[in-house]
């Protein structure tokens, strides 16, 4: 089930668990009372037709981690997926962690304290093309368009930051909640998973508070996501995001979605030395308001029919290439769900920051690939460098505790 208007999806954690269990101390000698802020009590549903974290409004912090599956036999996969489902269900709903004898290592990292609060966490599990290779006999069940992410003309892909057998997207109010969830998953699956690459992203809190009414700004200073698909419209989601039964996809994939993750470094020193007018021409919008060039409001739709030669919005402008709004291009609409990232320095000593681009679509080829091919040669290419990421397929939701994420896939072959 996808989320309608943001406020109505919030489910009080207190109602689910019981006030005393939440607010009482975890152990007799633990005297400090738990003071949970309102946000930490919010729990996103785990069970449903679709996984959470796709049409769920974006919280402030995210962590993407790709894994190599170390299991060597098909027979080990049900245990892996079942364990992942159990842990993700616990982490997203919260609860107390069992005490352990002090002579044994603790089961939980403890970074959220003795009671795990949900903190608006969603944990979305997706599979990569390599999971369908010779190892597990799953080739016949592979989603139609799922292959390893190819290199586009402006890419400088670092193999150590690309691809993976599995990927988990953790999104919550705080970095600690995501990190806690990752460490929990690793602790639960020794010998079955090895992290392959990981990256964390953030959003400004004022955007989160207004829950999508105020668009995010990226590291170039421009609003990012203005013309995004409206997650509150179920018909749009069914048409553009969720794999449906009539799409020539394996039956198990219905209710899932193709997921693209791209780590796109922005060359911000050079961008910040570029005249404002040129920046706006490259993007196709005014920087301050986010309005298309020569328009007044962010949500105004550019009138390309009245501008066939691109004198207002250049034919090579980012927004025009991404969405030309011509008859026939409406099939390539995608649901973007990106974050900003910032980490370290490049080998040349410049800032390594940029866009943690994430999108979902029912058809990878008609969606992201078509859009990215259109963007080839855009003026923005001088200022961005895609360095990592991959193509994945977000599994359909799991309806109830007896099932687990991926059970349809494993039963299909």
């Amino acid at each position, binding site marked *: 089930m996808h989320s309608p208007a943001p406020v109505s999806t919030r489910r009080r954690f207190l109602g689910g668990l019981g006030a005393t269990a939440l607010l009482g101390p975890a152990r007799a000698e633990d005297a400090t009372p738990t003071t949970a802020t309102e946000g930490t009590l919010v729990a996103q549903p785990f069970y449903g037709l679709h996984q959470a974290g796709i049409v769920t409004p974006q919280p402030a912090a995210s962590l993407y981690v790709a894994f*190599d599956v*170390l*299991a*060597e*036999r098909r*027979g*080990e996969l049900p*245990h892996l997926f079942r*364990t992942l489902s*159990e842990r993700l269900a616990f982490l997203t709903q919260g609860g107390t962690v069992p005490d*352990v*004898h002090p*002579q*044994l*290592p603790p*089961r939980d990292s403890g970074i959220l304290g003795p009671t795990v609060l949900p903190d608006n966490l969603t944990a979305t599990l997706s599979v990569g093309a390599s999971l369908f290779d010779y190892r597990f006999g799953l080739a016949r069940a592979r989603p139609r368009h799922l292959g390893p992410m190819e290199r586009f003309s402006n890419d400088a892909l670092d193999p150590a930051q690309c691809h993976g057998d599995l990927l988990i997207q953790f999104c919550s109010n705080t970095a600690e909640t995501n990190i806690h969830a990752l460490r929990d998953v690793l*602790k*639960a*699956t*020794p*010998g*079955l998973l*090895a992290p392959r690459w990981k990256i964390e992203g953030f959003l400004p809190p004022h955007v989160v508070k207004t829950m999508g009414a105020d668009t995010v700004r990226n590291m170039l200073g421009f609003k990012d996501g203005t013309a995004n698909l409206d997650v509150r419209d179920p018909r749009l989601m069914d048409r553009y995001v969720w794999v449906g039964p009539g799409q020539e996809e394996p039956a198990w994939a219905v209710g899932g979605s193709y997921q693209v993750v791209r780590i796109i470094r922005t060359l911000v020193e050079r961008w910040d030395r570029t005249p404002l007018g040129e920046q706006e021409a490259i993007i196709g919008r005014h920087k301050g308001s986010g309005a298309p060039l020569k328009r007044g409001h962010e949500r105004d739709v550019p009138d390309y029919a009245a501008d066939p030669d691109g004198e207002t919005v250049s034919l090579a402008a980012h927004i025009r290439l991404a969405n030309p709004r011509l008859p026939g291009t409406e099939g390539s609409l995608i649901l973007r769900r990106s974050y900003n990232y910032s980490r370290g320095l490049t080998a040349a000593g410049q800032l390594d920051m940029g866009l943690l681009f994430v999108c979902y679509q029912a058809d990878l080829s008609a969606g992201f690939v078509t859009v990215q091919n259109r963007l080839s040669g855009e003026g923005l290419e001088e200022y961005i460098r895609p360095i990592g990421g991959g193509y994945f397929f977000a599994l359909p939701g799991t309806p109830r505790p007896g099932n687990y994420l991926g059970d349809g896939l494993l039963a299909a072959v």
Partner: protein
Amino acid sequence: MPEIPRLAPDRRRAAAVAVALMVGLGDPRPGWALEQPDSPPRPARPSRPAAPELAAALAAYRTYVVAQADAFVRETARFVAAVQAGQLAEARRLYAPARAPYERIEPVAALFPDLIKRLDVRGDEFELRERDPAFVGFHRLEMALFTHGSTEGLGEAAERLAAETVILRDRVAGLAIPPAKAVGTASALIEGIAATKISGEEERYSRTDLWDFQANIEGSKVVFTLLRPLLADRDFVARVERSYKRVEDLLARYRSPDGGFQSYDNLTARDRNALKGPITLLAEDLSTLRGRLGID
């Protein structure tokens, strides 16, 4: 091959175990699969074995540690002799075997950080890297022998190295290893593998990481095998032994004809990943040893 320790008759049982482990134990069943522990793999309540049996196992381990420290002195002396005689090829051949006894007991040696600083420090631990004057010991010689290809001017550094191994042996001989530390050595050796050996960061110039890897595993397995009779959970024991065998079988594929190991650079990404699984599982399982034995 490690020497069999000599024990008084009343320690014969522990000695028998020590001998048995020298021969090499493994799971004889073919076609094993990496079975998963219950998630999480935790014993409900530690059970305390009889104190004399634990003491006997720890005493046998101490004997083993002293024997390795003796071997370390001997093998390093042979290596140093080759360096001082200017025999480059011989020195290169003796480098990794000299380190093996140390790598088998590394966490015990690490009880003396001042010695480790002079024996086993790596260039990348310093801001000035290999140019730092504090970069001495095995890896300093390693760099000269394998990267620069020369024994020139190494006489003093080699002599110092030999002297440090004697100091280590003397300290170890006089050491009462705390029980928690002795038992914890089994997992500490695996943590070392997981942190630097599996990535080839230890032997940057000679690429002899697989020698160290094998020695770490051997040393860990000695501890575990001595404690095995005291462990009540047979499923746990079987799982740990399967993990050891998995690692040993994988490493064995990289043996060289002279009985040593190929360069770490020959390790394929696929095999490196294949090692990660049992190594992580060993680290998790062996981290419960102290709890299972009721040791603080």
